[in-house]
């Protein structure tokens, strides 16, 4: 089966002018460069990167609202920027910071409109709406004007609006941004179900690593517009191995602990964080020889640390190349 998204050497530049009129300085910013990847039907792929890395720019090109400066792009077999309207009928898109819902009207009205927008038969629409209402627990606020919804409720409404026509591909740009823990987890569980039960392909950008750990079998990391990594989570951990951390609670505050095989990275009162370079057992023995320990915790590297390391590595590599 042919991939649902195919991007080859995709690039996008922006011209930004700054300064006063007449003294305008024009500068070219490369938001995305030489990005090549493909996504197969049924995958959940996380597209990660720090702010300004080029995530949203990529999503805009994929959905056809931004024309690539270079490269080849096919989404469900269509060329997004040329066939935007047709593509819009096949995919579902949610930009976390924007809404497609009618601000002043009850949520229900916006959802009803999608039936005409996507030409969904009335019976199918009603069935899917009932399903999604149940899964996303929309019932209590279907009749509430959108402007009165909480961010989490609005996001669930937007997800529903994007899914009522049963798209094969769901593109999400920061779907959990600004949400509380409960809303985040509702949305994550929902996306997992959507993917496993209906086979919907999901591509999401996020810098919430909780999203990634829960949802994504595969991640792509973009940094400064370049694809820095594309593979599964465990491979990402292996590419940028990060040390484990030993958290030590002493009985009393003390200066940073100095023992072989560990470096104190943080001290907060009696609590110290030790980055391990040796076997934890040896370090614990060494620490307890010189300090009174009240409690110990061993923390595995979080995906956050891994990604941060990957960025640092990328940056030093590219500095080396340029310099």
């Amino acid at each position, binding site marked *: 089966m042919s991939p649902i998204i195919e991007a080859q050497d995709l690039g996008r530049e922006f011209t930004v002018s700054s300064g006063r009129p007449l003294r305008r300085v024009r500068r070219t910013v490369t938001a995305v460069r030489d990005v090549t990847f493909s996504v197969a039907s049924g995958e959940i792929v996380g597209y990660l990167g720090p702010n300004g890395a080029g995530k949203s720019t990529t999503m805009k090109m994929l959905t056809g609202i*931004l024309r690539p400066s270079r490269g080849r792009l096919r989404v469900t077999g269509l060329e997004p920027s040329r066939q935007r309207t047709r593509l819009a009928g096949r995919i579902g898109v949610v930009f976390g*910071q924007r809404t497609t819902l009618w601000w002043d009207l009850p949520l229900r009205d*916006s959802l009803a409109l999608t039936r005409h927008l996507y030409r969904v038969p009335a019976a199918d629409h009603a069935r899917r709406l009932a399903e999604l209402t149940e899964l996303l627990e929309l019932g209590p606020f279907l009749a509430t*004007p959108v402007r009165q919804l909480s961010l989490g409720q609005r996001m669930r409404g937007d997800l529903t609006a994007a899914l009522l026509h049963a798209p094969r591909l769901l593109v999400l740009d920061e779907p959990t941004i600004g949400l509380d823990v409960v809303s985040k987890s509702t949305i994550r569980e929902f996306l997992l179900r959507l993917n496993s039960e209906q086979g919907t392909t999901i591509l999401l950008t996020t810098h919430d690593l909780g999203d990634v750990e829960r949802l994504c079998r595969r991640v792509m990391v973009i940094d400064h517009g370049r694809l820095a990594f594309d593979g599964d989570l465990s491979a990402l951990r292996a590419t940028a191995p990060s040390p484990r951390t030993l958290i030590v609670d002493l009985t009393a505050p003390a200066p940073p602990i100095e023992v072989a095989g560990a470096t104190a990275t943080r001290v907060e009162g009696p609590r110290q964080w030790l980055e391990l370079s040796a076997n934890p057992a040896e370090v614990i023995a060494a620490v307890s020889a010189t300090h009174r320990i009240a409690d110990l915790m061993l923390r595995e590297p979080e995906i956050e640390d891994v990604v941060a390391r990957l960025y640092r590595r990328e940056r030093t590599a590219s500095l080396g190349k340029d310099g």
Partner: protein
Amino acid sequence: MRLHLAVFACGLRRYSTYRAATFAGLVTNSVFGLINATILLAVFAARPEVNGYDATDAVTQVFLAQALLAPVAAFGPPLGLGERVRSGEVAVDLLRPAHLAPWWLAHDLGRSAFSLLFRSLPTFAVGALVFTLRLPQGPAHWGMAAVSVALAMLVGFALRYLYALAGFWLLDTRGVNTAAALLGSFCSGLLLPLAFFPDLLGSSLRLLPWASMVQVPADVFLGKEGVLGGPLGGLALQAAWAAALLWLCAALTARATRRVVVQGG
């Protein structure tokens, strides 16, 4: 078509949620109508006729202008699209499998239909209670007046849509909107009936699109000659502008969205 009817209904319902604003607008229109009419009546006390308009014509035009102000929005407010282009929110509009111009047309006609019912009719009724107004004679004349108002709403939409489209090139349309409000209120006959302008200026302004929002419908309503000879000429002029401007809307939308740079994350 179904989709656009549904969007029209959403537009209509949306504005029906602004009850207080609608009422405030209605009061403003009526008060301005009363003030303008009183001033014009003072002018007409000195001379019975100006450029073929008598006092009743003038007062009727004043209330027609106040009544049309909200549905055609000659004086603003601008179409929400302009602000959406500036903020990048337009991305969401472009992600729908629907063309931009018909979507906004349906939405805005919903708004105009609402204000026609709940602002125009009451405003005109206030005028009719306080003054003697001149009404169309017979069903054919009423019919032409109604078509003329509908065409005025189309022209009003098309102009505001074009101002908003400028945002794709300029990003910030506040300057455009200010200029548009000035042009709109002066050239449409909203501020002062074009009939009172010197002949050449008045008839030239009537040919421009802005006049098709207020002055031309007023001419049709009052059964005046206008510039193209009678109500049918007025309707033809409005229809021509509506068609030309809507065509331009569609053509420029295609260009704008091709070069679109959607702002923001």
